[in-house]
C-alpha cells in the first residue's frame, strides 16, 4: 500500500501544475491577459512566452504543459496510487520521466537560447520535478512483493 503522504501530495502537485499551466495557456491565447512577471533582467516572462521557442511543431508549450497535467492527473489520483496494476505504475513513472526530460530541455532553452527566465514556467518546472520525485519514491515504496521476487 502506498504511503498516505504520496496519495495526498501527488494529486495536490497535479492540481498546482494544472492551475499554473492553465494560466500560461490563457495568457498565450488571450492578449489581454498579461503574466504577472517582471520584464527586466534575466527574468522576463514575455520574452520567453512570446519567443519562437514557445511553440513546438506549432503547438504552444503552455498548452502542451496543460495537456500533460490533464493526462497524468488520473494516474495520480489516490485510487490510482492504491492500484496494484503494473501498467498504471509504469505509465506513471514513464510520464514522470517524460515530463522531467521536457523540463530539462525547456530550462536549457531559457538559459542558453533565450537568455531569459519565465517565473511561471519555472513554477511549472518545479512542480514537474517534485512530481517526478514523489512518483519515483512512491513507486519504490509500493512495488508489490510478488514482483520484487519474480523480477
Amino acid at each position, binding site marked *: 500500500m502506498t504511503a498516505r503522504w504520496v496519495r495526498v501530495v501527488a494529486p495536490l502537485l497535479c492540481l498546482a501544475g494544472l492551475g499554473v499551466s492553465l494560466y500560461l495557456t490563457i495568457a498565450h491565447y488571450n492578449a489581454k491577459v498579461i503574466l504577472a512577471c517582471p520584464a*527586466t*533582467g534575466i527574468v522576463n516572462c514575455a*520574452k520567453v512566452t512570446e519567443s*519562437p521557442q514557445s511553440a513546438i511543431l506549432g503547438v504552444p508549450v503552455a498548452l502542451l504543459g496543460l495537456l500533460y497535467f490533464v493526462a497524468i492527473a488520473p494516474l495520480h489520483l489516490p485510487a490510482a496510487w492504491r492500484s496494484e496494476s503494473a501498467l498504471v505504475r509504469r505509465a506513471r513513472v514513464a510520464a514522470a*520521466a517524460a515530463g*522531467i526530460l521536457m523540463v*530539462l530541455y525547456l*530550462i*536549457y532553452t531559457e*538559459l*542558453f*537560447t*533565450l*537568455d*531569459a527566465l519565465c517565473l511561471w514556467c519555472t513554477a511549472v518546472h518545479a512542480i514537474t*520535478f517534485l512530481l*517526478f*520525485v514523489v512518483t*519515483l*519514491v512512491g*513507486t*519504490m515504496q509500493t*512495488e508489490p*512483493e510478488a514482483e*520484487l*521476487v519474480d*523480477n
Partner: protein
Amino acid sequence: MAESTRKPPPRKAGSGQHRKPAATPIDPEKVAAAKAAKRAEAEAAAARKAAEAARLARKKRQRKLTYGAIGLVIVVIAGLIAVKAVHKPASDTGSGIQDADPAVVAQITAIPVSVLDKVGDGGFLPDFRLPSGNPPPLVNGGLPRVLYVGGLFCPFCATQRWPMVAALSRFGTFKGLRYARSSANDTPKDINSFSFSGVTYTSSYLSFTPYETSDRNHKPLDTLPAADTTLFSTLDNQPTLPSGATSGTIPFVDIANRWVLAGASYNATDLQGKTWAEIASAATSGTGLGLHLDATANWITAALCSATANKPASVCSDPVIAGLETRIPVQ
C-alpha cells in the same frame, strides 16, 4: 539445543532402587522420515533466507535507481545553471541585453565639459546630410524632434549610440538605459553599447524617439509608426544620401529634419573588444577611442543646439560647441 541443557528429573527419595527404562523398538522408517523432514525444513529455511536476501538486494537496487535518477536530474539542472553562470556571452546568440552598471551610465551621461572642450572637433567633420526637398521641421509637442532608427545587431548603431547618449544627456535625462551587444556574426562583432529600445528620454528642449527595429539576432523589436517609416524611407535614401550609398542605412539619425546622419560617425572597430567600463572610461578621459567618441558627441551637441535655437545656454554658449555649430553645413 534446549534438550541438551535440561537437567534429568530428580529421583524419588527412598525408592532404594534404579528402574530400568522399557526398551522401545527402533523403527528405521520413522527415523528416515524424521531425517527427511528435518532436511526439508532446513532447505525451506534456506530458500526463505535466499528469497529474503534477494528481496533486500532488489530493494537496495531500486533505492539506488530511484535516488540515482533524482540525483542525476538535480546534477543536470545544477550543471546548466553553473554553465550559464560562468558562460561568457562574447560569442553567444543571446539577446546581449543586460542591466547596465549605474557607474558606467553615470560616466557616459556626464562627461566633464572640460574633457569635451579639450577634444573639440576631434579633427574631423561627420557627414551631416541635408534632407532633400527641404522638409518642414520635425517637431513633437512643440520641441525639435530627433528620430533614431537602428538595430541591436548592428555594430555601427552600437558605435553611434555612445556619443548620442553623451550628447543627448546634455539636453535631458535617459531612464532605462540597458547594456546591449551587437551581433556576434557581424563585422566588427560584439560591440558593447546601450539599447535605445524601451528607454525614456525626458527633456525641456528636445524630443527623442528611438527605434531599434531588430534585436541582436535580427528578430523584430520596435515598430516604427507609419509616418516615421515614410520619413525613414524618404530621407535614408538618395538624394539625401550621396549617390552610391545604400538606402536604408542604419543607424539613421534625423535631427529635426535639418540634418541626417546615416551610419556611424567614427570607427566601429575602435570599440571592438572593449568592455562598457573601458569605453566609458575612455570617453571620460577623452583619449584613445574616447577622442573620436567625444568629438562625435560634440558635433551632435552642436547640431542639437542649432535645432533648439541654442537652448539651453549652459550647453550651447560653450565656445567650443558654438564654434562647431558654425561649421555644420546648412540648407
